[in-house]
């Protein structure tokens, strides 16, 4: 075939070879301070996020769920990036991810590996998959702030 190499293969390969096959922090916490769920009714993706927040710090974090590779990898990356970080930092990362996925803002240095999600912004119809766990996190941060 002389046609150009399909552009999304790489994106998938990068994501999948890593987080899809070896999800980080997959499971449930024994004593979470926050347990939150999110469903994307349109495509059926589901995420459950457990948080152990103490003194403004995310001491532990874990997720379970089912759905497409993008929703599951995004959740895995989320946990990896935020474990042990402060709630304030989580909020900053969250808004950086949103800006990258929704507005197409180039990822800042604080996103770290999350920048590999940037490719999803080119797939508008899949953005909601990538955002699912982040929206769940938002609920968690809100209720942590309220508590």
């Amino acid at each position, binding site marked *: 075939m002389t*046609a*150009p*190499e*399909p*552009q*999304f*293969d*790489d994106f*998938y*390969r*990068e994501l*999948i*070879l890593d987080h*899809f*096959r070896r999800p980080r922090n997959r499971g449930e916490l024994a004593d979470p301070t926050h347990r939150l769920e999110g469903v994307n009714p*349109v*495509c*059926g993706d589901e995420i459950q996020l457990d948080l152990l927040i103490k003194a403004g710090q995310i001491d532990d974090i874990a997720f379970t769920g*089912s*759905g*497409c*590779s*993008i929703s599951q990898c995004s959740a895995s990356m989320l946990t990896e990036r935020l474990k042990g970080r402060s709630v304030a930092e989580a909020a900053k990362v969250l808004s950086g991810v949103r800006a990258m996925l929704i507005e197409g803002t180039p990822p800042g240095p604080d996103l770290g590996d999350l920048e590999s999600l940037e490719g999803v912004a080119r*797939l508008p119809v*899949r953005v909601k*998959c990538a955002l699912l766990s982040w929206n769940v996190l938002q609920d968690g941060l809100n209720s942590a702030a309220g508590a």
Partner: protein
Amino acid sequence: MAHLDVARIQHDFPILKQEVNGRRLVYLDNAATTQKPRQVIDALVQYYETTNANIHRGIHTLAVRATDQYEAVRGKVAAHIGAANSADVVFTRNTTESINLVARAWGDANVGEGDEIVLSLMEHHSNIVPWQLLARRKGAVLRYADVRDDGTLDLDSLRALVGRRTRLVSVVHMSNVLGTINPVAEIAAMAHAQGALVLVDGAQSAPHVPLDVDTLGCDFFAFSAHKMLGPTGVGVLWAKPGLLETMDPFLGGGEMISVVKPEGSTWAQVPHKFEAGTPNIADVIAFGAALDYLRHLGMEAVREHEKAITAAAIEALTRLPGVTIHGPRNVGIRGGAVSFSVDGIHPHDVSTIVDSYGVAIRAGHHCAQLLMRRLGVPATNRASFYIYNDERDLQTLIEALRQAIKVFTHDSARTAV
């Protein structure tokens, strides 16, 4: 696949000449909507450039011309489904509106507290939700016939549900997920024996199989132009002769009245009684061109072509590692909507990857969440074929699927470009 001259047909579809993601477009999402031939696009242009006027009321030349062209399409629709009278053909927006029309204009008057409506688990949401809304309004009860593991309708389960309280049996003719063609004549006989009426959701059959509403024996038949080469925005409701006359109006407004007085109004003759306001004139007329196109090909030939390509698709898919097909394998009892799952790869991922190879398939619940639950899957992939699809399209699909499987299953991926 010699039933149709596919190369010549492809030539009639301008969109097929374009590239998508740098690849030749392979359009296999025909159960969602089909592409339009030049003839249909030309009919639209022709209408707007030479005829456009509001119909039925006008005396001037353009209004008369537009009215004649619009009304002529009713006859073509009747011919397509083997109906005797074009006055039994109502134009709506889509299958969904056709079914809602029956639920309101027939259902509200004929379905009461404790009455039952029998559906099946393979129905499209458009043949479920209108009845749920009716049931809520009237205190009626919905019953769902089961689907067998092989993807066929469980007729025994249906028979057990149809009884004295049944007012309506509403079933899909051809499933948009499984491809299954249901034995509508048999179902209609069952229903009529209990005094129930029968609605057939023909959204997937009208485009793909020769039809004769008399043989089907149904009371209502609903379908959409956009799934059969026609423009978006046109649906059809056909009703058995005499039935529309007994029904209340659905939408009120211009065109559907005879005399309007402050305290109440009288209605126009059918079918106009059910076409309130300015109809989608241009698209109905262009739908006429789509029906001409299909008549010219011959629905028998369309069916044979699709049987051939569907059989080839089922065979090729079955040979791919980890692929499961949902629905019957025998193309004698099924159409060209082929749903499948790929082990370990979510349908949305499959769809995104094959799309990067120019292949358009659908992934999701296909507006059939009850069926997804019955199949035990969150979603499926679906490739659906039409008159312009050929072996080469199928091969491209299979090749793209191979790549998707490779990406997800081999660590040893090719290096990034």
